[in-house]
């Protein structure tokens, strides 16, 4: 087995011209597949020694709104650092629920995206924030919105030879959160997860669901209903609380859950509605943040 360890993105992209090469970031999905016999790499391209991929920056507000650009090998532990967590609170919430400290130190956002597990914890956050994935190949760089990047369970729009180099997320003003249900308190794959982001400038609500469908699902009908119900001009705490249970039902209606050994479809649909109602209550209920 050959292991390439380039130190720049250009070198890495050039190496990807070889169709047999497989990208390795933190290895927390990759090595599990190797151990299970589902993946037999002959050539591995390790991203570990490419410093550019491990950095993040706040892009000046030349675009509207301002963005944060996360390199593909930014880890969960990085997402939990105060400066980044403050800019992207829902992403930090999600990162906090991932695996164990060891997994959070090794696992990366690029790996979570490329794996595209229906239970990937950053995916609902990225979907809710309408993040954009930057992908590079010898042909150049292209942007893929998360909504089209994930094409199905463990399937992405990534073509052979393409490398995820970064993810761009908008900076929103308004409450954000991530919630997850699993059977135990840590080291657990989500049975249902949900991200909610409020954008007070555009007066929109974004809500995306995880583990209840083939990929992250946007609950657009529920989002629009909630945005239309809220009195955006007055602090939520002083207005009559909107019917958040109805919001929960709309969200549950958007889910496409299946039965598996982690939970029944009926339980997942019920649970996602509960998460939605609770997230909305946090955002807009009495004493809420918005």
């Amino acid at each position, binding site marked *: 087995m050959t292991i390439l360890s380039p130190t720049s993105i250009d070198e890495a992209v050039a190496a990807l011209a070889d169709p047999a090469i497989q990208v390795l970031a933190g290895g927390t999905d990759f090595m*599990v597949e190797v*151990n*299970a*016999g589902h993946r037999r790499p002959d050539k591995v391209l390790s991203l570990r020694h490419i410093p550019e991929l491990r950095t993040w920056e706040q892009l000046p507000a030349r675009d509207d709104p301002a963005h944060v650009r996360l390199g593909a090998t930014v880890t969960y532990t990085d997402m939990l650092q105060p400066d980044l967590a403050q800019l992207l609170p829902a992403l930090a919430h999600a990162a906090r629920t991932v695996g164990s400290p060891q997994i959070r130190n090794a696992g990366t956002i690029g790996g979570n995206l490329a794996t595209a597990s229906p239970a990937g914890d950053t995916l609902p956050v990225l979907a809710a924030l309408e993040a954009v994935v930057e992908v590079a190949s010898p042909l150049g760089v292209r942007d893929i919105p998360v909504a089209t990047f994930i094409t199905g369970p463990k399937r992405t729009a990534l073509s052979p030879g393409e490398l995820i180099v970064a993810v761009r997320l908008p900076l929103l003003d308004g409450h954000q959160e991530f919630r997850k*249900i699993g*059977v*135990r*308190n*840590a*080291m*657990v*794959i989500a*049975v249902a997860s949900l991200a909610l982001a409020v954008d007070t400038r555009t007066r929109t609500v974004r809500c995306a669901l995880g583990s209840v469908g083939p990929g992250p699902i946007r609950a657009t009908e529920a989002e629009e209903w909630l945005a239309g119900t809220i009195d955006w001009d007055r602090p939520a705490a002083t207005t009559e609380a909107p019917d958040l249970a109805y919001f929960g039902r709309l969200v549950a209606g958007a889910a496409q859950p299946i039965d598996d*050994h982690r*939970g*029944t479809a*009926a*339980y997942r649909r*019920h*649970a996602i509605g*509960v*998460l939605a109602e*609770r997230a909305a209550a946090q955002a807009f209920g009495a004493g809420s943040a918005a």
Partner: protein
Amino acid sequence: MSGTVGAPVSRIEGLSKVTGEARYAADFPLAGLAHGWIVQSTIARGRVESVDAGAALQMPGVLAVVTATNAMRLQDVDDGELLVLQDQQVHYRGQTVALVVGDTLEQARAAADGLPVEYQAEPHDVLLSASHPRLFAPDHVNPNLPTDTLTGDVEAGLAGAAVTVDHTYSTPAEHNNPMEPHATTAFWDGDRLTVYDSNQGATRVHQALVRLFGLEDSAVRVVSEHVGGGFGSKGGARSQAVLAAMAARMLGRPIRVVLSRKQLFSLVGYRTPTIQRVRLGSDRGGRLVALDHQVVEQTSTVYEFAEQTAVFSRVMYATPNLSTSHRLVALDVPTPRWMRAPGEAPGSFAVESAMDELAEACGVDPIELRIRNEPVTEPEGGRPFSSRNLIACLREGASRFRWAERDPRPGTRRDGQWLMGTGVAASTYPARSAPSTASVSAQEDGSFIVRLTAADIGTGARTALTQVAADELQVPMDKVEVRIGDSDFGPAMIAGGSMGMASWGWVVVKACRQLIADIDRCGGVPDDGLVARADTADDIAAQADLVRHSFGAQFAEVRVDVDTGEIRVPRLLGVFAAGRIVNAKTARSQLIGGMTMGLSMALFEESLMDAEFGDYLNHDFAGYHIAANADVQRIDATWIDEEDDQLNPLGVKGIGEIGIVGTAAAIANAVYHATGQRQRHLPIRPDRVLSP
């Protein structure tokens, strides 16, 4: 000099373990070592038609492909799981059908992964049900107990009872999953076999290898100095030891075979799923007039293992009419075996849940209900108890847990999204001793060496035995070296059945007393030292016919999310009466470890049978959930001072298993108290909380 027995002594080998110096079975470097990798069947029933080793043998580093056609012939033993590669029959999915040996582990594994195996498959039968047409009554249940018992007339008792409870409870298959997987490094020196093996008792592995390979006792040595847990799954020899020894013989090289986590799910045993019907009849005050406990469980077609699930009912509560029964079906599944507190762990879940239901039905406090049903002698058989302090445990626990302040009404305490509740359950486990041998030698320099084939599977046994020997010899602990885990030291009990200390401690005490007498007689330690040997076989045979059991009370507090059904366990308390405690630190670890495993059993652990393929489908830690640190919040174990001079010279009862007994029932009872919904099936998953 004051003794060390009872003190919270840190484990002696702790430093060598955390620095990596301690060697486990797969850690021994040997010149010329080769590695074996097991190939498992992909059908659940049928025959291996052929194994095409051609391509594998061409792969780099591959030394051999051992199959039923070329495997060394073994002598017959009564455990079919050990007669590995002796015929073409496939009894369950995951059974060993070949061993690929390579210079490196990776080479062996790469060849094993692609090895073409052709099967003649037959339809399989892998699902346990209470109405299975092939249910039968085994001759006896583990270890050698009656299958069924009957005292009085249970049907008449139930018919005349003022209050009855009649429910079916179930527990799933659960896998032991010790931290260290089963592993063996084997080599031959002429006709003498040495194995470094991960097990709970080198004596039993030694016996198995002696028989299988037709050797003299003295021609086999099993070394197991450090072992990373077993929970029953290493109670006897497992097939990796046989494969390593066989391949080493065939190839004339040292061979190591280590199981993967996934392989543990089919090759080393697990806890049978159980379906248990419990019927209780009582007067209005909750005094039992009848108890019936009927168990249905599974075994494999390779080896009959009948778990003693209903024996819990034979000792717990006074009732004039008592019956217990076990029915078994042999399915095309891996062989279930011991898993921490086999029998008592699942049995107590059913009976202690039913007792809570009876308390509710009678309007009697669950602790008071148990006190009202306290027997004077063993309910089944009538023999006296050597000591029985269940009530003391319940009372001590009640006061520590502030049980008196509890409002018995279910489903009434709410804190935001959480419903809160508390529950209690009783526990018990037999306290037995088994014959063992040991030697103690006095060295010239005033130090002592104790040798016995005990096992320290992470329990602290080595440390506790050092305390025992030091006290007997009246020297500080650093003057005593206890060497264990070597079959050359002579036969001894395994670390199993909570019998380790009660068996090894006894023989160590006996050997030390013998040595002191010898030293006195010689007027000191002669220049070439002095050795005393002891064997407890006669002492144990001469024991009075009493019922010897430890008892305990388990208390749990839970919070249940009213909308999602998620359960948290903020508090667990166990109070135990387990005779003398030799080491307060390692004993506490054993007890809270058992309770944590009980919490895990209550909420998480469940091996799911894939009916189509006939395999446990969640065979890794991503799918098989064990409690994580974050799941265990306030957990405490304590014990009452219990003196019992009818046990063994140390007065110990054993603590390895009682911690898991009753925990799941205490949690299920607390969930009922929180929600008003009874949970009769483990694990108590969130979806079951919402729709039981």
